[in-house]
């Protein structure tokens, strides 16, 4: 697995021992099977994560109490080669309703052999999350916003 970063994007790639069709379907249909558990904005545990496999669909978490959190919009869906979805989560770990302030994730699947697929992921336009930083920093919500965010950060470090 490799990781690269530029100023406003982060890129990752991984090679899996599986045909491209399976690699694509597990990434999309099976998104909930590998998404890190901490990725949860609901107040309760997640019962399932649904990846709606069409442009205009959402990726959403459904909590054990039936509550839902739609945190991504599917922008491109081209099996088995490519999928693009938005990242509608603010740095304060809340749903971003201003779409100009959302980033996007593109995932490409490349068949290296009949049973081997390279998956390249780019999470880009991270600077779009930016304009909120200043107001958050100066506002009363700053402390809470940062604390919530840092809690997740610290969990990662401890994991």
């Amino acid at each position: 697995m490799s990781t690269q970063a530029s100023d406003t994007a982060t890129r990752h790639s991984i090679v899996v021992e599986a045909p491209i069709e399976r690699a694509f379907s597990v990434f999309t249909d099976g998104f909930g099977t590998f998404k890190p558990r901490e990725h949860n904005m609901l107040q309760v545990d997640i019962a399932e994560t649904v990846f709606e496999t069409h442009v205009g669909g959402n990726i959403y978490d459904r909590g054990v109490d039936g509550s839902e959190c739609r945190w991504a919009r599917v922008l491109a869906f081209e099996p088995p080669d490519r999928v693009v979805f938005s990242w509608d989560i603010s740095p304060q770990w809340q749903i971003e309703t201003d779409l100009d302030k959302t980033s996007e994730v593109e995932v490409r699947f490349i068949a290296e052999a009949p049973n081997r697929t390279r998956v390249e992921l780019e999470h880009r336009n991270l600077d779009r999350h930016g304009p909120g930083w200043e107001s958050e920093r100066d506002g009363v919500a700053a402390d809470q916003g940062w604390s919530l965010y840092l809690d997740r950060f610290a969990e990662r470090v401890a994991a």
Partner: protein
Amino acid sequence: MPTYEANGLAALGDPTRRAIFEHLAERPRAVGELAGELPVSRPAVSQHLKVLKEARLVVDQPVGTRRVYQIDPEGLRLLRGYLDHFWDQALAAYKTAVEQQAKESE
């Protein structure tokens, strides 16, 4: 993993540094203020700030005779550090899931 992301994660892994960082998230502060608010000596605060600065999580500027620290106004570095970690973990788990399914279907 790029060095400064790793530095950012490591820098915030220390509870004292995290406390300093959170204090700076409220508003910019000088070294002496931080030392007064936290159960940490002034030289220790300076040392922690140095690490945070090297990880590019905070920036400083002189104000009169004091040096005032604040969170890197971009904040982008922190977000990217988080997302880097997130995708690393997600893709590792994805690889396990996809290869397990491939095996089961054989």
